[in-house]
C-alpha cells in the first residue's frame, strides 16, 4: 500500500433546498486501499460519492476534487469513467433480459464501425468473469442468476472499463452471508491487483474485516478517519461516531395517554417474491396500544418496509404466514381494500412512486383512498369533497394556494402532509408510517411529528418506521429493533439509547460475521 493519496476531496460543501447535505468535507483515499465510509442514512455518504463520480456535476458543489494529482471537474458519469472511476449503485444497473456479456459491455461495446464482435465480447467477458470468480456462461441472461452473482457482473462491468477507483454503494445489503463473503474476497483480490476501492456499508463487522481505512460521516460532516490497524477501530467506536449527536428540542412535547391493545401481529413471516427461499421477515411479533406511538428501527434492507407492506394488503412478498389482530380479533388483510376496511392505513416511504398521483390536485389526492365516504350510488358529492379537503388542509397545516392546485407544485414536506392527509381521511385505527420524514427539512419534520402526536392523542395506534434513531427516540413510547428480518428487541423510550438500538439493529448481521 502506498501512503500518497490517489484521491483528495477538499472542503466539499453541497446544499439542496433547505438541507446542507455536505459541509466542508475533507476526504482522502490512499492508492491501493479499501476505504470504507459509514454513517446513518442521510448522513451524506451517497451524496459525497455522487460528487466524486460526476452525478452531481462540477459547479453544483463547492470545493476541490483531485485525482492522481489532477483537478477533476466532472460534469457527468462519462467524465469520471474516462478517468477510471466507476461507481456501482445500490440499485443495480443491469438489464434483466440481456446476457451477462451484453451487460458487461453495455455502453462500452466491443465493436468496430458499430458492428459488435460477439466472439471478442464473449471471450473478454469470460476472462472478466474469471477475475471476479463467477463461473457462469457469458451468454446467460441476468434474470437467471441470483443477486450475489449480479453484483459480481457489475464489478466485471467496471473492470471492463479499466477501473482504477471502484466505488460500491451498499454492495452486500441484498446479499446472503456466503455471497457477501465471496464479494469481499473479490475486493481483496482487486486491491492486491492495484484497484482502489471505496465501499459504503451499514454492516460494520464486515467493514472492519475488509477495510484498511474507515471514514465516519454524520450530518454531512466527516467525524473522523481511522486506520483500521493503527487505530484499532471497533464497532463501538464507529457507532458512537455515527450517532453521537446531541438531542435538543427537535421534537414537540407529547404525553402518551395509552389505552388497551389495538393492533397485534403474531409470527409474521414473509418470503422474497422472486427468490422464494429467501426469508425477508422472520416470525415477527409486535403490538401497539390505543394512543401509542411505536417505533420500528431498522437499517435499509432489514425488512422493515417488507414487513409493513406485507401486512398492508400483501402488497409485498410471497408465502406470507402469521396473524394480524385488531382489538384481539384476527382480521384479514389479504387485499388493500380489506386492510383499509379493517382500519389499517399505510403511508409509503416513497411518496412519489407509491403515495401520490402527481398529475392530480391536492384535493383529489387527499380523498383518493376514501371516496366512498363522499359519494352516493357512485356519484361524488363535489361540495362535500371540497369541504373535506379544506378541513384536512387546515388540520394538517398544508401550505398550498388552494386544494385545487396540482400536488406536484408543493414542497416535499407539504407533499408528505398530503399523503398523510389521504390516510387520516380514511379514519383508520392503525397507521403505519414508513419513513414519514424522509427528505424533508427540519421545520417540516417538526410539523409532521406534531401531526403524529395529534393522531395518537385521538387514540390511534401509530407505527413509525425509521432509520433515524433520534427521531424514534424523540417521538416513540416504545421502539422495536429489526435486523435481517428478525425483531431483535423492544426498548422503552426511557431506556433507549442510539448505541443500544444500533447494536440491536446490527445484531443479526454481526452474528453472521
Amino acid at each position, binding site marked *: 500500500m502506498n501512503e500518497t493519496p490517489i484521491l483528495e476531496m477538499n472542503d466539499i460543501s453541497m446544499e439542496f433546498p433547505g438541507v446542507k447535505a455536505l459541509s466542508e468535507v475533507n476526504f482522502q483515499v490512499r492508492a491501493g486501499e479499501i476505504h470504507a465510509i459509514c454513517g446513518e442514512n442521510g448522513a451524506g455518504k451517497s451524496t459525497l460519492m455522487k460528487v466524486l463520480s460526476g452525478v452531481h456535476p462540477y459547479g453544483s458543489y463547492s470545493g476541490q476534487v483531485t485525482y492522481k494529482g489532477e483537478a477533476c471537474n466532472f460534469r457527468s458519469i462519462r467524465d469520471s469513467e474516462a478517468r477510471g472511476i466507476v461507481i456501482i449503485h445500490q440499485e443495480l444497473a443491469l438489464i434483466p433480459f440481456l446476457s451477462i456479456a451484453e451487460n458487461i459491455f453495455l455502453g462500452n461495446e466491443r465493436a468496430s464501425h458499430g458492428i459488435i464482435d460477439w466472439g471478442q465480447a464473449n471471450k473478454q467477458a469470460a476472462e472478466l468473469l474469471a477475475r471476479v470468480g463467477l463461473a457462469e456462461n457469458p451468454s446467460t441472461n441476468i434474470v437467471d442468476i441470483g443477486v450475489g452473482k449480479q453484483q459480481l457482473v457489475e464489478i466485471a462491468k467496471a473492470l471492463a472499463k479499466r477501473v482504477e477507483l471502484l466505488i460500491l454503494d451498499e454492495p452486500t445489503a441484498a446479499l446472503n452471508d456466503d455471497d457477501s463473503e465471496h464479494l469481499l474476497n473479490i475486493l481483496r483480490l482487486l486491491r492486491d491487483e492495484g484497484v482502489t476501492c471505496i465501499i459504503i456499508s451499514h454492516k460494520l463487522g464486515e467493514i472492519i474485516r475488509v477495510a484498511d481505512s474507515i471514514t465516519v460521516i454524520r450530518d454531512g460532516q466527516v467525524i473522523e478517519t481511522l486506520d483500521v490497524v493503527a487505530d484499532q477501530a471497533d464497532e463501538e467506536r464507529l457507532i458512537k461516531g455515527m450517532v453521537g449527536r446531541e438531542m435538543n428540542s427537535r421534537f414537540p412535547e407529547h404525553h402518551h395517554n395509552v389505552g388497551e391493545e389495538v393492533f397485534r401481529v403474531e409470527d409474521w413471516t414473509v418470503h422474497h417474491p422472486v427468490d422464494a427461499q429467501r426469508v425477508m421477515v422472520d416470525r415477527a411479533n409486535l403490538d401497539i396500544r390505543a394512543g401509542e406511538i411505536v417505533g420500528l428501527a431498522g437499517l435499509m434492507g432489514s425488512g422493515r418496509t417488507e414487513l409493513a407492506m406485507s401486512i398492508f394488503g400483501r*402488497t409485498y412478498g410471497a408465502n406470507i404466514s402469521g396473524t394480524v389482530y385488531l382489538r384481539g380479533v384476527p382480521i384479514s388483510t389479504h387485499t388493500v381494500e380489506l386492510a383499509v376496511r379493517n382500519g389499517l392505513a399505510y403511508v409509503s416511504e416513497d411518496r412519489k*412512486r407509491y403515495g401520490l398521483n402527481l398529475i392530480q390536485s391536492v384535493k*383529489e389526492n387527499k380523498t383518493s383512498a376514501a371516496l*366512498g365516504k363522499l359519494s352516493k350510488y357512485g356519484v361524488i358529492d363535489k361540495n362535500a369533497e371540497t369541504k373535506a379537503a379544506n378541513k384536512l388542509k387546515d388540520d394538517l397545516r398544508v401550505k398550498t394556494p388552494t386544494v385545487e392546485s396540482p400536488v406536484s407544485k408543493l414542497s416535499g414536506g407539504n407533499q408528505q402532509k398530503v399523503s398523510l392527509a389521504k390516510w387520516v381521511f380514511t379514519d383508520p385505527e392503525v397507521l403505519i408510517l414508513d419513513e414519514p420524514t424522509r427528505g424533508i427539512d427540519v421545520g417540516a419534520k417538526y410539523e409532521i411529528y406534531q401531526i403524529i402526536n395529534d393522531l395518537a392523542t385521538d387514540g390511534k395506534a401509530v407505527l413509525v418506521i425509521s432509520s433515524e434513531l433520534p427521531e424514534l427516540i424523540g417521538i416513540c413510547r416504545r421502539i422495536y429493533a429489526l435486523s435481517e428480518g428478525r425483531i431483535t428487541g423492544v426498548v422503552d423510550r426511557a431506556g433507549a439509547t442510539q448505541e443500544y438500538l444500533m447494536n440491536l439493529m446490527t445484531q443479526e448481521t454481526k452474528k453472521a460475521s
Partner: protein
Amino acid sequence: MASFKDSIGGSLRQYGIMGALVLVVAFFAVFTNGMLLNPDNVATLILQNSYVLILAIGMVMVIVAGHIDLSVGSLVAFIGGVLGWAVINWHWPWPMAIGLALVVGLLVGAWHGFWVAYVRIPAFIVTLSGMLVFRGLALMIAGVTMAGFDQGFIQISSGKLPQTFFIGNLDGLTLIIGAVGVAGLVFSQLRSRSAQIKHGIATESLGLMIGKLVVISVAIVAVTVRLAEPRGFVPYLLLLIGVLILIYSFVLNRTVFGRHIYAIGGNLNAAILSGINTARTNFMIFVHMGLLSAIAAIVVTSRAGAATAQVGQNYELDAIAACFIGGTAVTGGIGRISGAMVGALIMGVLNMGLSIGKVDPAVQQTIKGLVLLGAVALDLLSKRRAKVA
C-alpha cells in the same frame, strides 16, 4: 400572481384545442368559398363523424387509464353483422335486434376486460387479438352484404327533428334546443362558481369565465342558427351524441368510477396502495368501450342501410387520433371527453373541407397524418414551456 398566471396558462392549454378548431373551420370556410358552412354541410359533418365521436368517448376512458383499444373497428363490423343476421335472416323486429347488439357489445367488452384486468395481459395485445378475431367473425357472418333494413332502423341515422313551427324562416324547435343548451351551460357554470365561492376556493377571474362563456355560447348559437335554416336540419344522431357526451362526462368527472380511472392512469402503484380495485375498474372500462362500440355499430349500419364485414376499417385509429389531438396523454392519467370531441371534429372538418375543395384523397391522408403529429407536438411543447416557466 403566480396562481393567476397558472390559471390563465392552464385555461389556454385547455381551450387551445378549441382555438385550433376555430382556426381550422375559418381556414376551410375561406378555402371552400363558404361552402363548408352551408347548413346541410354542418349537419352532414355530424353524421359523417358520428362513429368517431361515439368511439372516442370510450377511447378517452381507455387511454386515460393507460390502455389502448385496437379492436373497435372490427367490433363495429362484427356487431353490424349481428344486427344484419337478426333483422335480415331471423326477421327480428329492429328494436329487438338493437337490444341484441348492445348485449353483444357488453359481452365482447367483458371478454377484453377479463383478459386485461384479471389475466393482466397488456390491452395492446388483447385488443390486437380482438381486432383479428372479430374481423374474422364479421367475415363469417357478414361475408355477404346484408341489405334490406326497415325504414324505422334507417331513421336512426337519417331521421331529423320535425319542423313544427318557424320564427322568421328559422325552425322554432331547433332554436329552442339551442337556447336550452346555452342556458344550461351558463346556469351550470354559474352554479359551480357560486359553490366554489361558498367553499372559499379560488375561482378563475370573472372576466375569463364570461369570455369563455361568450365564445362557447356564440359557437352554439351559430351552429343552431345554421341548422335552423330552411336547408338545415337537426339529425336525431346529434341529440344521441349530445346525450352520450353528457352521460360520460358525468361519469368521468363526478363518479367514483371515473376518479378511479384517472387514479389508475396517473399512478398505478399509488392507486393499488389506496385500496382501489384496479382490476374491477379496468374490467368496467372495457365493458363501457364494448357498449359504445355497439352503439357505433348501430349508427354505422343504419347509415349504410346494410351490414357488411368490410365496414369499420381504421375506425380505431380515427378514435385514437381524436383523443390524442384532444389532449389525452399517451402515458395516461390526463384527458377529457370534450377535448376528444373537438379532436374528432378537427379531423372531420379537415376531411370535409379537403373533400369539398376536391383535394386528392392521397394528399388528404398525408395532411391528416401531419395534423395529428403537429397537434400533439404543440401540446407537448407548450407543456414543456410551462414547466420551465
